[in-house]
């Protein structure tokens, strides 16, 4: 359980959502295994995890599109576990393009309002406002086949928001788009979510997306919530081996742990809570915490250097054949080239370790 009175980036008009000990089986597969999350009003929670971890099942259960076998879902304090999807008032943007092909952009956005009995003029006005909000005010009469993937997902977002839903559910809405549109649209979604102040559950398998968008990020594995925390905390202070290895890049460096520290390449690194505490371990060290110094008698040999714009990433082979990745600014990497000898050290930043 988590603190629901937290400050979130949005303007605070949303409702609280609570998953309580949810279970879902698909035959022998335990898709949700005791999932409990509390989401504060107006908060954007990003659920992150590998394929099949249960994140989409959780989202579909909240949307009423899938049943749960056990547990409860509360929205604004009201139990909606058995309420059918069409009575839940949830706005959903799907991974697949889901605009109705037989309707124009405006009719798509107005469809939910039509179902709510809003009269023609009012619903068209509202639909146009929503299309304006997502930057498609000039495309109201276009059919989905006349729009690009990014435009279609914008219309889908407008359609989801037009009904003024209690919760916005985003089921990997950017995964079908190319990298440029993806980045642009995720910033737009976040801007609109903060402006509207709607409580949002965002499901993704893209770490960058989750860390960039979420007020908090929940990492799921095998139907369980491994950890939920603010992006920086999740990255810097993982609580389980899965989170430590799944989120961000990590080096697995053999070392020995004693009394809450682990000696890695000559540096005593404090161990995070939940780490293997003693004996031979694999220390999980972030690339940005690895330091390379050019030295003719250095133990490491540079295997490759990748230029990433303002950053560089170098792969270094240690004498025991362990491959270590170091990340540094482009200027720091100027003296590195494949075959160069380097001394490898790590910073004493707290790290996670798993038994080897």
């Amino acid at each position, binding site marked *: 359980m988590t603190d629901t009175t937290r400050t979130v980036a949005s303007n605070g008009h949303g409702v609280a959502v609570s998953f309580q000990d949810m279970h879902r089986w698909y035959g022998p597969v335990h898709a949700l295994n005791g999932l409990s999350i509390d989401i504060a009003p107006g908060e954007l929670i990003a659920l992150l995890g590998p394929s099949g971890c249960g994140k989409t099942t959780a989202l579909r259960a909240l*949307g*009423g*599109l899938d049943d749960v076998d056990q547990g409860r879902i509360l929205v604004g304090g009201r139990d909606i576990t058995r309420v*059918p*999807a*069409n*009575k*839940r*008032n*949830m*706005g*959903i943007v*799907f991974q*697949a*393009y*889901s*605009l*109705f*092909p*037989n309707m124009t952009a405006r009719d798509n956005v107005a*469809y*939910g309002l039509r*179902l*709510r009995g809003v009269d023609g003029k009012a619903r068209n006005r509202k639909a146009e406002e929503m299309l304006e909000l997502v930057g498609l005010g000039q495309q109201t009469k276009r*059919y*989905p*086949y*006349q*729009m*690009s*993937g*990014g*435009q279609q997902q914008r219309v*889908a977002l407008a*359609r*989801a928001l037009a*009904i003024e839903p209690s919760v916005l*559910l985003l089921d990997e809405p950017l995964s079908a*788009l*190319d990298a*440029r*549109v993806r980045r642009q649209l995720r910033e737009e979604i976040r801007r609109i979510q903060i402006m509207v102040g709607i409580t949002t559950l965002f499901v993704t398998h893209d770490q960058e997306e989750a860390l960039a968008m979420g007020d908090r990020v929940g990492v799921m594995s095998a139907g369980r919530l491994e950890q939920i925390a603010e992006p920086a905390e999740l990255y810097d202070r993982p609580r389980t081996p899965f989170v430590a290895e799944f989120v961000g890049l990590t080096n697995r460096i053999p070392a020995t742990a004693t009394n809450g520290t682990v000696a890695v390449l000559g540096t005593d690194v404090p161990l995070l809570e939940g780490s293997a505490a003693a004996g031979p371990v694999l220390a999980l060290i972030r690339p940005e915490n690895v330091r390379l110094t050019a030295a003719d008698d250095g133990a490491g040999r540079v295997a490759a250097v990748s230029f990433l714009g303002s950053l560089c990433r170098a792969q270094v082979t240690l004498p025991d054949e362990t491959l270590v990745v170091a990340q540094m600014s482009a200027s720091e990497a100027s003296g590195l080239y494949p075959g160069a000898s380097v001394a490898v050290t790590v910073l004493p930043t707290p790290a996670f370790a798993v038994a080897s």
Partner: protein
Amino acid sequence: MTASPGGSLSAAAPQGGALVARPKGAGRGRRGSRRQLTVRVAILIVVLGYLVLPLFAMLEFSTRGPFGSRTLDSYAAILNDQNVIDGVTTSLQIAVLTVIGMLVLLVPTMVWTVVRVPRMRRVVEFLCLLPRAIPAIVIVVGIAPIYRWMGQHLGAIGASPLTLAFINIILVLPFAYRAIDASLRSIDTATLADAARSLGAGWPRTIVQVIVPNIRGGILSAAVLAIALVLGEYTISSLLAFNTLQVVIFVLGQQDPFISVAVSLAALVFAFVLLFVFTRFGGGPDRRFQAEVEEPAG
């Protein structure tokens, strides 16, 4: 002079024009494609001949007059023969009922199967294709007692030839299933249904307002196939002693073969026209699922 990877040679001409040498084998390629075209046209002529020749023979036969003359008397006689008119009317009524019944039964079932129980798709497909594997005579033997009971206990309704619609609904399932299934596969039915439901639509609205308009092509194809099958159905109507179009044509064939062939040809032409109208104005390929639009720049 330069050589391009494609093997063609080009040289600058004195007056600024370009001389382009024909690539090796270009003439052979052209001859080959001409031969291919000839073969295609020949195949087309043979196939069309195979299909059109019987129709032409029917037209020739049904327009024969005395002493080698041509007449449309047989076609005019159709309109004066009450049995033919009744047969046509009955068959059309049965066709309409069959189409309505088939769509009401099949569309919601198939949508539900795709969206909610995809693992049942194979079972539904098997059940729908089953009538194709059962000979009509077997179906009649099985269903005759039911029709006898209906005739005895349901009065005029039970004895009406329109009850043939029930059996025809089953007979058209294999064809209708294929047509509608192809349409359902061309759209993301499950996601569209989820989207409609999340916006507040119940199942009936989801099917009628969202799914049906997007599988219109398949529905029209299924309807055309059903109408064609009903207009051509003879065995079951005859064995159950109902006077449908084909039964009337058969009886006429024994009395006046010219009118019988004229009615058959007219029925075929009617079915062709119907097929053309449906595919031209409703059932043809739909651009809505084909276009791809590039992301706008910036």
